[in-house]
């Protein structure tokens, strides 16, 4: 359950990044110059709603709170370090012990943590 929620959060962050790109006139112009058709770029909102609808409400609320503060509410943990703020994750962190069924937050910056390569 939590594992699935974490993947949904990751997917949501990817979609929000794509939305941000689609709102950047210069980036869209670059894509169009390359030959890409972005005629339906407003459909990104629909995709975001779809994913948000599957998220636990409390978790989504927390995600939004973090998103208000940082561009990227999720951060990878590598070698026990949060790559959002570059501070070590707490000793005994479930992420350090490789458990995949918990959602953890960085004690320092509050970002949602994930381990790349162990989705």
């Amino acid at each position, binding site marked *: 359950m939590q594992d699935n929620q974490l993947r949904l959060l990751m997917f949501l*962050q*990817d979609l929000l990044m794509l939305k941000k790109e689609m709102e950047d006139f210069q980036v869209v112009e670059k894509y169009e110059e390359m030959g890409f058709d972005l005629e*339906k770029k407003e459909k990104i909102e629909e*995709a975001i709603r779809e994913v948000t609808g599957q998220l636990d409400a409390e978790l989504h609320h927390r995600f939004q709170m973090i998103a208000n503060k940082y561009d990227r509410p999720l951060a990878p943990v590598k070698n026990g370090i949060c790559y959002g703020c570059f501070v070590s994750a707490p000793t005994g962190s479930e992420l350090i012990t490789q458990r995949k069924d918990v959602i953890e937050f960085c004690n320092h910056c509050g970002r949602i943590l994930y381990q790349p390569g162990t989705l």
Partner: protein
Amino acid sequence: MELKELFNSSNVKLALGSEEKDDVLLELISLLKLDEKAKEMLFKMLKKRENLGSTGIGKGFAIPHCRSLVVDKLNVAFGRHTKGVDFNSIDGKPANYFFLIVAPPVEISNYYLPVLGKVAQFCKSTDITAKLDKLEKVEDFLALLEEAGN
């Protein structure tokens, strides 16, 4: 970064076997070294990107691309489909040549858009489809990238 530096024998497939757009995406994703859940997430993200407008840029080329948390560095793949697959391309014609480009949300070197631009430019090279059709092995593809100055 030059395109030839990104491709190798494991991320190039000159005989894609899929017949449908989604299956081509899955076949291209399978060329990347990712675990099953990451592949699944990447597929969903590429599909969402396709919904905004097909990445089939016409003349037989498609360049599916996205940024995703499932990768921690720029990943690319190339596939060729002899017969061609309906990819909802802008010219309405089937796509035969596929470049998959996936990047993490943040890259130190910020290669994503420049690489995407180089691939798009490569696809517009003179006689490129004839040259791609003649490829017999992966090394030929790498040599073609080098020849094109990419």
